[in-house]
């Protein structure tokens, strides 16, 4: 097994249709091991469909999805064992405690016992919720619940984490906290991350990004390049733009590429 060289996530020429409507059209993207990659797209662009295929909710009919070299259709078990997911919708049991929720998810990966207890407390520490172990999820704020979901997604030590609009509906501080946690995981733990979003200030200029629109990848490169490529005349100096400038540039480029629908998404 060429486990070392294989990218964390490889989506190769994937198309998917619901009835006559094509939700994804010949989409290819790669998340290298240990890297942060952002997937930008307005609502309805096909991000959630792409996530559904990458998590094997339904199978890929055209194209292939590989996780660390394991084909999701042919070796789903090996592929899913490497994969952690945070879905867009809230998926914790509100009436169960944080630790019950985490233990349930660990069981779905065949994990139990004392090492699990240690793992759960370490993860809650990581997301800053060590003191909420025995509280019902219902009592948590939206941002805290999201952090529990990140802890949950990491419980079986996956090397790839997918997040679908993880910060949607959260206030600024909660959003920043979540972005920080995930970026730290990439740097410190070598986790590979695919971060789907339509919020531009979550993307740094040097991040690798893919732009998805109407089911197709319409741009790929570093955020800086993608923004610059579409707004080249507007740029003045040779020095890299300040963070706010980069965000604005990316947003403007995104608007230009996807049309007015970006506004609906905001």
């Amino acid at each position, binding site marked *: 097994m060429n*486990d070392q060289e294989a990218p964390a996530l490889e989506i190769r020429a994937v198309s998917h249709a*619901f*009835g*006559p*409507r094509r*939700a994804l059209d010949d989409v290819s993207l790669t998340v290298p091991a*240990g890297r942060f990659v952002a997937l930008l797209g307005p*609502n*309805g662009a*096909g991000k*959630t*469909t792409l996530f*559904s295929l990458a*998590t*094997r*909710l*339904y*199978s890929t*009919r055209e194209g292939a999805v590989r996780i660390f070299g394991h084909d999701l*259709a042919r070796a*789903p*078990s*090996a592929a*899913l*064992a490497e*994969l952690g*997911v945070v*879905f*867009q*919708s*809230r*998926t*914790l*049991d509100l*009436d*169960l405690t944080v630790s*019950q929720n985490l*233990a*349930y*998810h*660990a*069981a*779905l*990966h*065949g*994990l*139990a016992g004392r090492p699990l207890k*240690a*793992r759960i407390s*370490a*993860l809650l*520490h*990581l997301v800053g919720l060590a003191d909420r172990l025995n509280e019902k999820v219902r009592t948590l704020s939206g941002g805290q619940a999201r952090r529990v979901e990140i802890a949950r997604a990491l419980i*079986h*030590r996956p*090397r790839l984490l997918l997040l679908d609009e993880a910060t949607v509906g959260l206030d600024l501080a909660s959003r920043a906290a979540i972005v920080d946690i995930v970026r730290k995981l990439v740097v410190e*733990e*070598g986790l590979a991350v695919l971060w789907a979003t339509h919020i531009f200030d979550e993307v740094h200029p040097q991040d690798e990004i893919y732009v998805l629109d109407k089911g197709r990848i319409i741009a790929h490169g570093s955020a800086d390049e993608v923004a610059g490529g579409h707004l080249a005349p507007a740029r003045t100096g040779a020095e890299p733009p300040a963070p706010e400038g980069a965000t604005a540039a990316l947003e403007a480029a995104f608007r230009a590429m996807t049309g007015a629908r970006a506004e609906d998404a905001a």
Partner: protein
Amino acid sequence: MTDAALPPRHMVRPVRALGAAGYAVCLAGIVNRELLRFVQQKERFLSALVRPLVWLFIFAAGFRSVLGVSIIPPYETYVLYEVYVTPGLAVMIQLFNGMQSSLSMVYDREVGSMRVLLTSPFPRWYLLLSKLVAGVVVSLAQVYVFLAIARLWEVEMPPMGYLAALPAFILTGLMLGSIGLVISSLIRQLENFASVMNFVIFPMFFASSALYPLWRVREASEALYLVCLLNPFTHAVELVRNALYGAFEPTAFAVVLGTTIAFFALAVVAYDPGRGIMGRRGGPKGEAA
């Protein structure tokens, strides 16, 4: 900061084997979650109990004088109507429970915890089977509490009968749960539970031997008798009724087992990512056709 919990990546790896212990952990986790949720929902437990008790205390008491039940196996003597309906009511608990867990599958699908379940590396049929077993465990708790209350109401079975009926209840629970699973793959939205009541629960319950012996039905209508005979719920009730008196009904056993296998196989196909509902119309809101 979390070195103990998150060792450097290059140290981790070999692909984790999902051994027999892993399978057991997975099953236990799913059953445990179902039980925790069940304990949380006290109204659900209450209504699951009140329903059959209303039938037993009011309906059966009222019909006691109208419907005498003659000597038919497994009864060795004339029995009171309450005694006759109790096995049927116990299986009715499982019928409601099976449909309710199918409803919770639809709910899970809508809120997304189904998605979480399906990202488990265990085979999908095993996850569905675990869900099914979890539903059966919950239904057994309800059934035995009901039988205990019925016993106070002087509906007494032979003591060993309660034990002998356990495997029967497990099998009937699995059958009704599998039917529920298949139905859950057919309904798109939560609101359709009323239709499930109308088109599944009521016909199955009334067109069966739960409330009246089949020979009585036959006197009324030969066609209805045939329908009752074809209804797997009839056989579930008869399997349990016989087991409660220490008897084994081979036909009922065969029908219940066959129905369980057939519907479970259907459910596995329905939840197959490449074939059933998931691929065809499991699309996320706003992205589905």
